[in-house]
């Protein structure tokens, strides 16, 4: 739609509420933003044009007069009242009461006066009195909760952000989740992703890697792709950001509203980029009126919230002794666990069959020995704080909004700190009655630390902590860092040769800086009534610099210090710009309303990244690449262009029927020569049944609306040059002289194109019990084909994979949102809440020709099969433990199986245990996602909390597989493993394999089994916020409009059987979802803050 009049937009921004929150009380914050007079020049003008005679005056003029005269503020829905005319010559302006009474009678209005605020609504019973007034339903109004100090009724149309414009929700028939500013409170985080989790149906937010400064991943309606990107498109104030942009660049404090376009019909206006959903963000805008200043600050502490427990030093010694003894005994005859190391060596023992000498005092249970808890050493309580200032205001012609924030988060994991400064500026001005210009800018500057997030025993402190023994200390007695003590101590017996993680974190440099600014400059001209032209130029600029330095004075995995010094530096500059031309049309006559847009856009992105690796450092004195004497530079570069034409038409009749059709044509440089252009269409229809005359007047079901939409769109998150056969350097060294060579690295595919999706969405909205409950439900079927797959090909071709558009996936799901309005529980005690429930099921319908499964991931745990869902976890079903050799001999087993190993189920009964006996144990994708938001208010106190739950997902825990529960005797054992390990003497009923460093084929194969596919259902109290509003009487004299003190707790509890660092753990690769390997844990946060409004 795009062209609502200016006032409508302004008003809606200040007060728009999602359906869910519409029923909640209005927060003080929003109230503070609302003030009268707030009529824009342009609208006033328009209304005059509409008036037929001089005697009729638009209602807003009347309110303006009254507000000046009596110092009151009016709240009302602009769109509903703007065409109401009154003959004010008949009005008596002598008293407010008389004036209002007159309007009550003659304009069909109802008023509610509370101190200086007048809330206006249409009296539905009197609606027929006003000819120009179209019928509205009571759903558009909020009933009053008049027993609280701050609650206000608000008769404002809810507006949703759609591509290239806005629309009244009642006229929209797509599936759009909305989240407003008020719902974004209660989470201490630097990005909006964390904040919106659990607030919208069909949207999954996972903090797989909660590294400060990292972005959570957002999935809209499941996953519809296998190898292309699965990030939704993020559009901020009309500018589509680079795919996979760091969400931290958008300051949550500057956001006024977030709308998530979920169905294809809504997102099809973004064509080849819409298939993963579109998140539209609108930043705070200025308003006509006095300057509003709001200040917010909080300070909190982050604590461990995981439930991983490792054994102590004494149990660890027992465990290591068992593992090494069993290894020794299993590899030869005439051996005894009592043999000392010299005897063992003489009997042919290898290093891992010997007992480290330092274990002796532990095995003898001498008290008071070193017993370091390494997890509590690498994870320390750490502060988090944020301060932000927001200023908005404007005159009748110019408006401004300014937000500036400072965010500082120390890492829960030592050495991972993050700091961010961000600003957002919005300015707009009416140059003439018909010509408006504006600018939006969002610069931010962040510094953070890269923390190795995956498999790294050299750099990931969490993974190092699971392979660092409690017998060693982080610091020497003199307070200096202990260097390489475990490596040296373990060399003789080849234990875990891991460097002290504290030393690695403290002695290496891993710092990055990120400067990003994005924004828009636009100009909008009203060509004639209802017809506007808008031209905008947007840009998104990112500058990144990362310096890594590892001195020789600290060791690495299997390498004691002094080792080699090295450094590298990554720099990139990414430039993205957008030119957009949009003509929009919006007319209303009688019961018809038509709005339409026609537009064209061009977007280009350039990225070039330079990686410089430096070696041959003479010493450690210069802590960056400048200290090296040998360098290797790698330049990676890409560029893409997207040229688009788009159009959309909306038609509404009598607030009963609405139809929408859209079309977009995209040309992309990413696609192959034979497939540069694609067409995307959408259609949707809505029927507000309750507005029909036949719909019975009742108090049970009201505002019943049916929605249907159908649309197609694409996913263009494919490699920039995937259509081409690229060459990589592949050099050789003839006689120690470098000879440059190039090898053909990828197979070409000139037909490569976007992934296509087509979705059907059925929706129903209704209210129950006099609008106490608002219910919205959607069912969708999303079919995707032309899935881009890195198809494995026979390697005799010279290639391992080939990128092809092949494969089909079906996603279907159901979404339900139940939101209650604010209702009174007792005197001065109110409640409002919302419950979100989403399901998603995906099914792989086809892969490449002749390909019926993709097997991938660590230990090949993930299988994506035709007929199954994406990334199912496949493995053996473990039936128990072999306790005797006879049991092994008498059952099908893998070669090399030993006593104390696992009994595996011979699934196909062929007498052999092999890959054919693996079966699915579920996947990392939750079957159900539930969010439950609650707001309670008692007098001056407010309490809100959000519960979030994921049901029906599994996690494949690689830490358990390789160390904690492997029983191998290399890394640390978890208490859980230790307590449940099989030991013929001490624990004959143990269900975990016997400790044994002779890591048999059986153990290796058992790495993919039900033992390690962990149930990861959970319920988490994501946020709990208790606030106290200072009484108005205290504030009035000191010029403060509102003051609130609050306490927030995040992740205070998590109910789950899962034992791991991070229950959100998942890999970026959709095929290996639910893979957990020492991912950065989510913290439990306790914080306090206050909020002031002037």
């Amino acid at each position: 739609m795009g062209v609502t009049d200016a006032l409508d937009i302004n008003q809606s921004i200040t007060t728009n509420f999602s359906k869910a929150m519409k029923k909640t009380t209005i927060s003080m914050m929003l109230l503070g933003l609302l003030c009268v007079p707030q009529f824009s020049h342009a609208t006033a003008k328009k209304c005059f044009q509409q008036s037929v005679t001089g005697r009729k005056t638009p209602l807003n003029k009347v309110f303006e007069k009254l507000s000046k005269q009596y110092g009151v503020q009016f709240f009302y829905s602009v769109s509903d009242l703007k065409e109401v005319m009154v003959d004010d010559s008949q009005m008596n302006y002598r008293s407010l009461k008389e004036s209002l009474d007159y309007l009550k009678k003659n304009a069909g209005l109802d008023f509610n006066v509370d101190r200086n605020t007048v809330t206006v609504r249409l009296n539905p019973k009197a609606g027929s009195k006003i000819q120009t007034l179209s019928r509205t339903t009571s759903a558009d109004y909020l009933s009053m909760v008049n027993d609280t100090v701050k609650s206000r009724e608000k008769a404002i149309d809810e507006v949703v952000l759609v591509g290239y414009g806005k629309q009244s929700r009642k006229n929209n028939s797509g599936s759009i989740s909305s989240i407003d500013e008020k719902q974004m409170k209660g989470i201490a985080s630097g990005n909006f992703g964390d904040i919106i989790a659990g607030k919208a149906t069909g949207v999954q937010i996972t903090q797989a890697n909660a590294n400060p400064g990292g972005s959570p991943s957002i999935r809209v309606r499941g996953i519809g792709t296998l190898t292309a990107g699965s990030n939704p498109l993020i559009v901020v104030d009309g500018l589509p950001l680079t795919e996979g942009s760091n969400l931290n660049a958008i300051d949550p404090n500057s956001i006024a509203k977030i709308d998530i376009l979920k169905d294809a019909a809504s997102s099809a206006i973004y064509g080849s980029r819409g298939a993963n959903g579109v998140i539209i963000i609108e930043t705070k805008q200025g308003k006509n009126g006095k300057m509003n200043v709001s200040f917010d600050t909080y300070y909190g502490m982050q604590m461990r919230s995981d439930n991983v427990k490792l054994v102590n030093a004494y149990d660890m010694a027992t465990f290591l002794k068992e593992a090494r003894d069993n290894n020794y005994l299993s590899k030869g005859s005439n051996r005894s666990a009592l043999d000392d190391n010299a005897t063992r060596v003489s009997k042919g023992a290898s290093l891992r069959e010997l007992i480290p000498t330092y274990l002796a005092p532990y095995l003898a249970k001498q008290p008071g020995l070193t017993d370091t808890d390494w997890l509590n050493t690498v994870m320390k309580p750490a502060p988090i704080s944020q301060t932000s200032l927001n200023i908005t205001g404007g005159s009748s012609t110019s408006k401004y909004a300014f937000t500036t924030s400072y965010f500082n988060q120390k890492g829960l994991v030592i050495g991972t700190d993050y700091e961010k400064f961000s600003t957002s500026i919005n300015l707009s001005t009416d140059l003439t009655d018909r010509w408006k210009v504006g600018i939006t800018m969002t610069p931010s500057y962040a510094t953070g630390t890269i923390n190795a997030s995956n498999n790294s025993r050299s750099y990931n402190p969490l993974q190092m902590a699971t392979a660092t023994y409690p017998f060693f200390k982080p610091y020497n007695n003199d307070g200096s860092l202990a260097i390489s003590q475990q490596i040296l101590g373990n060399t003789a017996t080849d234990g875990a040769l891991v460097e002290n993680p504290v030393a690695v974190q403290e002695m290496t440099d891993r710092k990055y800086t990120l400067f990003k600014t994005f924004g828009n400059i636009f100009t909008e001209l009203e060509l004639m009534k209802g017809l506007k032209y808008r031209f905008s130029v947007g840009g998104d600029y990112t500058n990144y610099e990362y310096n890594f330095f590892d001195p020789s004075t600290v060791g690495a995995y299997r390498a004691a210090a002094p080792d080699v010094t090295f450094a590298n530096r990554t720099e990139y500059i990414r430039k993205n710009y957008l030119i957009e031309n949009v003509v929009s049309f919006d007319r209303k006559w009688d019961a018809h309303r038509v709005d339409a847009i026609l537009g064209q856009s061009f977007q280009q992105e350039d990225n070039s990244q330079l990686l410089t690796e430096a070696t041959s450092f003479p010493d450690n004195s210069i802590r960056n690449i400048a200290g090296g004497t040998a360098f290797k530079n790698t330049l990676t570069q890409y560029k893409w262009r997207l040229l688009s034409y788009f159009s959309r038409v909306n038609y509404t009749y009598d607030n009963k029927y609405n139809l929408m059709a859209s079309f977009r044509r995209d040309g992309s440089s990413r696609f192959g020569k034979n497939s540069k252009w694609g067409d995307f269409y959408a259609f949707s229809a809505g029927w507000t049944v309750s507005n029909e005359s036949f719909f019975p007047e009742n108090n049970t079901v009201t505002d019943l609306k049916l929605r249907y939409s159908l649309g197609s769109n694409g996913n263009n998150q494919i490699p920039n040059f995937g259509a081409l056969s690229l060459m990589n350097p592949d050099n050789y060294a003839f006689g120690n002289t470098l000879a440059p060579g190039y090898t053909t690295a990828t197979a070409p595919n000139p037909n490569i194109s976007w992934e296509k999706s087509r979705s059907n969405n059925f929706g129903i909205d209704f209210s129950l019990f006099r609008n106490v409950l608002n219910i919205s439900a959607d069912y969708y079927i999303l079919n995707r084909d032309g899935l881009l797959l890195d198809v494995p090909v026979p390697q005799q071709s010279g290639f391992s994979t080939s990128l092809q558009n092949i494969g089909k996936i079906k996603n279907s799901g159901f979404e339900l949102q139940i939101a209650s309005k604010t209702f009174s529980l007792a005197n001065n005690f109110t409640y409002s809440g919302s419950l979100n429930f989403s399901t998603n099921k995906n099914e792989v319908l086809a892969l490449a020709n002749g390909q019926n499964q993709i097997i991938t991931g660590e230990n090949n745990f993930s299988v994506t099969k035709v007929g199954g869902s994406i990334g199912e976890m496949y493995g053996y079903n473990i039936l128990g433990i072999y306790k005797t050799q006879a049991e092994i001999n008498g059952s099908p087993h893998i070669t090399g199986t030993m006593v104390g190993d696992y009994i595996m189920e011979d699934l196909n009964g062929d007498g052999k245990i092999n890959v054919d006996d693996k079966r699915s144990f579920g996947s990392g994708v939750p079957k159900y996602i539930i969010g439950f938001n609650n707001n309670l208010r008692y007098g001056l106190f407010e309490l809100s909390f959000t519960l979030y739950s994921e049901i029906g997902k599994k996690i494949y825990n690689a830490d358990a597989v390789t160390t904690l529960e492997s029983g191998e005797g290399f890394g640390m054992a978890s208490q859980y493993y230790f307590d449940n390990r099989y030991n013929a003497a001490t624990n004959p009923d143990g269900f975990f394999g016997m400790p044994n460093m002779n890591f048999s084929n059986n153990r290796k194969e058992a790495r993919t089994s039900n033992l390690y596919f962990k149930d990861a259902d959970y319920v988490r109290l994501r946020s709990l916020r208790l606030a106290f509003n200072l009484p108005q009487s205290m504030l009035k004299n000191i010029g403060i409009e509102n003051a609130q003190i609050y306490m927030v707790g995040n992740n205070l509890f998590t109910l789950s059987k899962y034992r791991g660092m991070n229950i959100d753990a998942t890999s970026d690769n959709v095929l290996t979802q639910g893979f957990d390997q020492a991912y950065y844990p989510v913290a439990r946060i306790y914080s306090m803050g206050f909020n002031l409004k002037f």
Partner: protein
Amino acid sequence: MKKLFITILSLSIITSCSSDLLDVNPEAQKVSSQFYTNSTEIEQGIISVYGSLQYVGQYQLAMPALGELPSDNTYDEVPANDSFTYGELDFFTVQANNSLIASAWKDNYIGIQQANIILTRIGGISDMTDALKASRTGEMKFLRALMYFNLVKIFGDVPLVLKETTNVNDYFGQPRTPAAEVYSAIETDLKEAVSLLPATAAQKGRVTKGAALGILGKVLLTQKKYAESLTYLSQVEPLGYQLLPDAAKIFDVTNENNAEIIFDVQFASGLNGNSEGSTAFQMFSPSGSVSGAKGHNLPTKEVYNLYSTGDTRRSAYIGLTSSGIPFSKKLVKTSNTIADGGSNCVVIRLADVFLMMAECYARQNDAANANIYLNKIKKRAGIAEVNFSAASVLLDEIDRERRLEFVGEGQRWFDLVRTGKAVSVMKNYFANNPGYSTAQIDSHHLLMPVPQGQINTDPAIKQNPGY
């Protein structure tokens, strides 16, 4: 004002309407459709075929490990490390998903395909002399043959592809080619290479006629074509190769590409951001002896003790750590960077040619000549020369000599397989070494399993029996 807008509108629409806008090529990467057009580019393509020799699945790790770890010459000190990848080779419990096996299959075919591309394109290059084209063609044929030879030794039957790939999907449904056919293609390539290659190359490390003769000799010997093998092997020494008098000098990193070396894979440390070195010294050094050492392929005590007194090779080829663990001196630490070892990996040297000749002579019951060539090696080692007359005795002695001479060079296992002794020798070895009480070997272990990933990709590829 309206005019201004219309101007901007039309300008921006016009400027953005051209479809050429959508043709964007990479600026920091070459595109193969625009490559291989002149001699410089063809030479760069040829270098990448040599470059593939450095891959993990070729001579960086796979050939030294697959060629020796299963044998009685080397063992894995820390078998469970690296997901048991190397331990499986040591204990004959290899699984079809072993990552080193997968690399060997893949990396050889990458090199073969690059060679196929060059062989297809080189004819059309105009700025290259015919002489140069001929020798480069010889190099490519040699390398392709060498890679197929390695594949066929490891896996037996393997799919044979001798053309440039134009459509990757063409290969679905192609079964493994019988080993005999692969051998015949290898012989054809090598014979052509012999005729095309020069005796000496301008650059150290390039393929020469001697290399083609030597490998052809080995290919024929492997197929038990002793007489034919001899005709090629005997042409090698006259090209100017010599045994170095001091065995310790053969693998001295300051003396690489010396007169005894016929063909070796070049590694260099400290070059191009440490990208031309090998991780082999780290993987195959005793745990704790150098940074990142993993002890995956260490000489056994048995082989260390096998050298007779006075044999200069023991100290030249094998060192002992302070705790008495033997390690190969043929791969040495030349850099502090774990992944940047500079020792070349020898593919064939004159000593190998002499011992193969001795074997061929012995097989043909020419004891005199067999003793001559065997004694060349013994003499250089500083041990007593022999004069055996019975072929079987000679063959056993040659076998023993090969074991001692080529320890750490990835030869022993293939020698055992070639001579048919693998199963009996290893059974004996397991019996004598207490750490192997659980190890078992039978004839199916003579070939490695085909990577499971390839069978998953295309069921037309069948697994070797026994796996």
